């Protein structure tokens, strides 16, 4: 019977619907990133940052469809190091109930998340053309290659990557998405150098306040909403476990918010909104890898540590004169690594309801999982930071990486785009 309703058919369609909704939630994170990055930087560069967030999504989605998806989810060619499925993945199945397109849509949103992380770290000084070149390269090559190592198998046994094969666990992408984006962001910030006026002659950092903490806060809330697609959606199935993962995700985010607030308060003497916001994101990034294999209490602990890490990392980067205007490296790179390591510490067989049996150091699993997680974090770091450095330092050699000093001082909006983000607003125009 062609139209017979079977429980299997209902489940299949439920999986499609949930995964698609989750993908749309992940797309919401684009708006979140755009607002966080714009709010945390100066008004004179707001249109430029919006433009970059728009373009990395548009260019990145196309690049991932044409080339990236094939490298990430094509059949493995070199022992799990590289996939190849042909340009535009010609093998995508068509017809009623076809899962492939939903899967590709969902994965495209993840790729775009990695790509857009970088724009915050390179904000207010990168040349627009260079940013476009970078956007295409990360989505077409850098993200898909390391993604294949860890997630290739999501598309089938034939495309399992080498890290998956040895038992590496990154449920929703602390490493695959966030630390890849974070490492490239670090490479970008280092290649560009600090914004004019960021560091004084005596080596101390000058504050360059963001122009709208209202936009920045709204952005963090949007990212947080998006994460409820990012993590629970990564089951790509409408099953009972999605609710528990939504809870671990939220607990970690809240714990990260509070511990970042307290850490910053203790060090600086004031409850700093921007640090608390970074803390929310730090907790979210950190719980992304372990969200399905840890207990709720462990999720809180992971978030608490993430919030401390993010604040200390922001201060440390300033001490090293690496200028990251929005804290992208501290949020995504540092806590992406932490979340990945946390799997090796806190993975608890009792927490899993999806046939998962891995156990971390604190749950009788010994050192093995911790070692595998560390190997995954390290190899991804080498790949992403190496490729990011290659791209950004090449652009620097070509002399097209950074805008001229005069453009930077006047603001990228008027000089690069000929448009003010706030044409009829008054703001203090020298900052």
């Amino acid at each position, binding site marked *: 019977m062609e139209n017979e309703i079977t429980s299997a058919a209902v489940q299949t369609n439920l999986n499609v619907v949930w995964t698609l909704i989750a993908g749309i939630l992940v797309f919401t994170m684009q708006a979140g990133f755009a607002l966080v990055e714009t709010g945390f930087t100066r008004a004179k560069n707001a249109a430029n940052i919006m433009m970059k967030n728009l373009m990395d999504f548009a260019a990145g989605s196309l690049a991932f469809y044409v080339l990236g998806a094939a490298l990430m989810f094509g059949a493995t060619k070199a022992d799990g190091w590289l996939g190849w499925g042909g340009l535009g993945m010609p093998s995508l199945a068509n017809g009623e109930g076809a899962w492939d397109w939903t899967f590709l849509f969902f994965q495209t949103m993840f790729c775009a998340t990695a790509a857009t992380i970088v724009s915050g770290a390179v904000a207010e000084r990168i040349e627009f053309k260079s940013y476009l070149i970078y956007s295409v390269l990360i989505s077409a090559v850098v993200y898909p290659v390391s993604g294949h190592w860890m997630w290739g198998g999501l598309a089938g046994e034939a495309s399992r990557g080498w890290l998956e094969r040895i038992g590496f666990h990154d449920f929703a992408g602390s490493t695959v998405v966030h630390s890849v984006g974070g490492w490239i962001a670090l490479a970008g910030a280092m290649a560009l150098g600090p914004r004019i*006026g960021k560091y004084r002659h005596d080596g101390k950092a000058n504050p360059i306040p963001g122009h709208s903490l209202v936009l920045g806060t709204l952005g963090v809330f949007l990212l947080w909403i998006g994460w409820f697609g990012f993590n629970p959606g990564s089951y790509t199935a409408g099953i009972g476990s999605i609710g528990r993962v939504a809870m671990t995700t939220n607990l970690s985010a809240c714990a990260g918010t509070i511990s970042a607030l307290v850490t910053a308060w203790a060090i600086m003497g004031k409850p700093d909104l921007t640090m608390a916001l970074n803390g929310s994101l730090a907790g979210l990034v950190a719980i992304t890898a372990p969200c399905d294999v840890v207990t709720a209490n462990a999720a809180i602990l992971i978030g608490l540590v993430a919030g401390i890490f993010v604040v200390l990392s922001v201060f440390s980067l300033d001490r090293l004169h690496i200028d990251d205007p929005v804290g992208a490296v501290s949020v995504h790179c540092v806590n992406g690594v932490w979340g990945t390591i946390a799997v090796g510490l806190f993975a608890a067989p009792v927490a899993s309801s999806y046939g998962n049996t891995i156990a971390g150091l604190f749950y009788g699993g010994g050192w093995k999982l911790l070692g595998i997680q560390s190997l995954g974090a390290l190899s991804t770091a080498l790949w992403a930071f190496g490729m990011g450095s290659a791209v950004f330092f090449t652009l620097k050699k070509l002399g097209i990486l950074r805008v001229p000093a*005069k453009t930077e*001082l*006047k603001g990228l909006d008027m000089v690069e785009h*000929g*448009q003010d983000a706030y044409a009829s607003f*008054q*703001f*203090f*125009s*020298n900052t």
Partner: protein
Amino acid sequence: MKLIIAYIQPERLNAVKQALFVREIYKISVTNALGCGRQGGYIHMYRGATEEVTLHKKMRLAIAVNDDYIEKTIDAIIEGARTGDIGDGKIFVLPMDECVRIRTGERGPEAIG
């Protein structure tokens, strides 16, 4: 006593502040301004439409000084604001009849301090 008013490029403000600071001139007020001098404004294009005279964003500095600080202040503004390009701005030096510090009621050079 003089009132020194200067219009400068917004992006030069930090350099001017620095140059004033090293000459121990700390009392300064700054506001946003729009205007054009010899450049005659600029042509602005937005979504394909052009506007012919658009005023430039400038910063307006007002600094009240005693006579022995006039030249130092002018030097500092020039040092910080001059790039050699058209649009660097102008300095106006105006006579000033009186100055009163509201908190104490002091008058004249004392009030400028």
